[in-house]
């Protein structure tokens, strides 16, 4: 047994493409407790979705887990068979996807799709499942649930469809909800509604949430812990306060600096992170961020930095931090 609900240790996952091996996850460790909200931020291709999908056993071909252990709620995910996995998927662990337009089946009614999850994982009868579906629609704030149950996805707006997705995900009161960019396709006012709903439901049902997003604004208001990913590695991990007020890694610092602030009075020039994202087929030899890093040292280009711990929670993978901590230690 672990003290955590989710405990991913040293996960390595590669996609074996015709062009060569893409190391999508390279030594990723993430954990969270029950009822905790963890945000994973990073650019496209940094491995944030892949991490979450692998926890659900949803790694797509030609991806393959090649190392590490994935623990979830008493299960050792990497050892489970497909059949065992199907039992917990949608039951103990659920996911909502980015695009509510394509993740609902257009030829089935809303009611049908919610009932499917209920019927699969409980021994409720059809009539009971229907009642449960109605209840769920009310829970996610959809009016006239009776009518909506008979409607098809195309009859609903984007925000409504995302609510339906959440209803399906919550059908069996999961322990962990993975939200993969749940509001990226939605407008700001609708995004605010959905985020509020997720937080409300979290308090009501006590589930843990992994929030995958590239929007630092979304994690700032929702999450307790944040993992910043870059090129298949967690380069910084800490509490929300650590990440926003005391970022240590150059990438995190740059990311926070580069967002325009809405409350800025005078026009200040933005400070971007120069360069382009890593080519995952030909990653640099040392630290993947080194080619874009302002404080790049010789060793950064040769070797991947080890983990530097600042306290029990906060850590980075950066040579500069390593050096600073060493000097601090030596001074003492």
């Amino acid at each position, binding site marked *: 047994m672990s003290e955590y609900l989710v405990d991913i240790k040293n996960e390595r996952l590669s996609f074996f493409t015709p062009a060569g091996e893409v190391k999508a996850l390279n030594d990723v460790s993430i954990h969270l407790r029950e009822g905790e909200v963890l945000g994973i931020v990073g650019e496209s291709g940094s491995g944030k979705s892949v991490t979450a999908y692998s926890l659900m056993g949803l790694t797509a071909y030609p991806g393959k887990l090649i190392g590490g252990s994935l623990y979830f709620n008493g299960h050792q995910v990497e050892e489970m068979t497909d059949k065992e996995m199907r039992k917990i998927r949608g039951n103990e662990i659920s996911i909502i996807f980015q695009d509510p337009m394509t993740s609902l089946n257009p030829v089935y009614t809303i009611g049908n799709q919610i009932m499917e999850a209920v019927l699969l994982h409980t021994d409720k009868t059809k009539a009971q499942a229907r009642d449960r579906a109605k209840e769920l629609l009310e829970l996610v704030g959809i009016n006239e649930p009776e009518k909506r149950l008979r409607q098809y996805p195309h009859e609903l707006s984007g925000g409504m469809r995302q609510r339906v997705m959440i209803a399906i995900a919550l059908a069996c009161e999961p322990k962990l909800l993975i939200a993969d960019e749940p509001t990226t396709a939605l407008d700001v006012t609708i995004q*605010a509604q959905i985020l509020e709903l997720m937080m409300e439901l979290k308090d009501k049902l006590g589930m843990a949430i992994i929030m995958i997003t*590239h929007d630092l604004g979304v994690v700032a208001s929702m999450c307790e812990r944040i993992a910043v990913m870059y090129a298949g590695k967690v380069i910084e991990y800490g509490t929300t306060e650590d990440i926003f007020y005391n970022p240590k890694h150059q990438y995190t610092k740059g990311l926070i600096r580069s967002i*325009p602030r809405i409350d800025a009075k005078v026009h200040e020039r933005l400070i971007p992170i120069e360069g382009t994202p890593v080519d995952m087929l030909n990653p640099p030899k040392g630290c993947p961020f080194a080619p874009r890093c302002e404080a790049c040292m010789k060793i950064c280009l040769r070797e991947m930095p080890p983990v530097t711990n600042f306290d029990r929670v906060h850590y980075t993978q950066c040579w500069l931090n390593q050096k600073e901590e060493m000097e601090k230690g030596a001074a003492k």
Partner: protein
Amino acid sequence: MSEKQNSFIQVEHLQQYFPAGGFGKNKKYIQAVDDVSFTIGRGETLGLVGESGCGKTTTGRTLLRLYEPTGGRFVYDNEVIFDVEKKQFVDMLPYRKRMQIVFQDPYASLDPRMTVGDIVGEAIDVHKMAANKQERYDIIIEMLRRVGLNSEHANRYPHEFSGGQRQRVGIARALAVRPEFIVCDEPISALDVSIQAQVINMFEDLQEEMGLTYLFIAHDLSAVKHISNRIGVMYLGRMVELADSYELITRPLHPYTKSLISAIPIADPKIAKESKRIALQGDVPSPLNPPSGCRFRTRCPYADERCAHEAPVWREVDRGHFSACHHIDRLE
């Protein structure tokens, strides 16, 4: 009126209805843009924000006559581009040299079978801007340099570039004819966060170097606030508020603008936890059949009888601060 006469760009009562089925009396129209008026001074940036389907993109495209306008007047540098009432439409070809557009999706807006050099060079050919091959090549290279690419990129194809680089190519293409006015249609939405700041800075530098005027369309209010001198907010085809960008953010008058600003996730955990969202109920109504009177009334917390009967008048509430709402005086 004197300010209006001096304005570089004057848009008056712009209307764009798209036919959407039906015959004769029953013919239906999507009222994408309805009665939108604004001006832009030379060298100024006007931001246009709003949720999807509010008509901001249609406004930009109609001005460039990528859609034929169904109503209104557009005066560009004291020359009438179109005046629908007087059935006056000029030949656009000479004006295409002066007005250009940068599209949202850098993946879809570049021809995959043309080299980057030819993509940028096409406009030069159309407008016969180069006397010979050498001159054409020189212009192409200069444009690529301006956007931070170099000469070796000219012979490559779009698929060899990252999203941010492709957007640079799209910008170089727009710049090739040395325009005065550029419609930037969500140019940063498809880019990674760390790249967005690079592109925003580039837009600012180019504006300074080449004296450009921008109509900057986006749904990300923080980015628009950063780059724009003034901001217009649209809702369901109508402009609801227009003001200096700092004024608009700090002292919004229209209830829609207020809720829009409050819905923006702020990338600062302390502020995010304190700030109160003004949650809007429901979804945006269909532009096929917009609500009578004020179009925002179905979601507005202050709506009353009058809003249903009477469309609010677009007026200058304060110096340079325009809005259309019956209840502005009450709300302040």
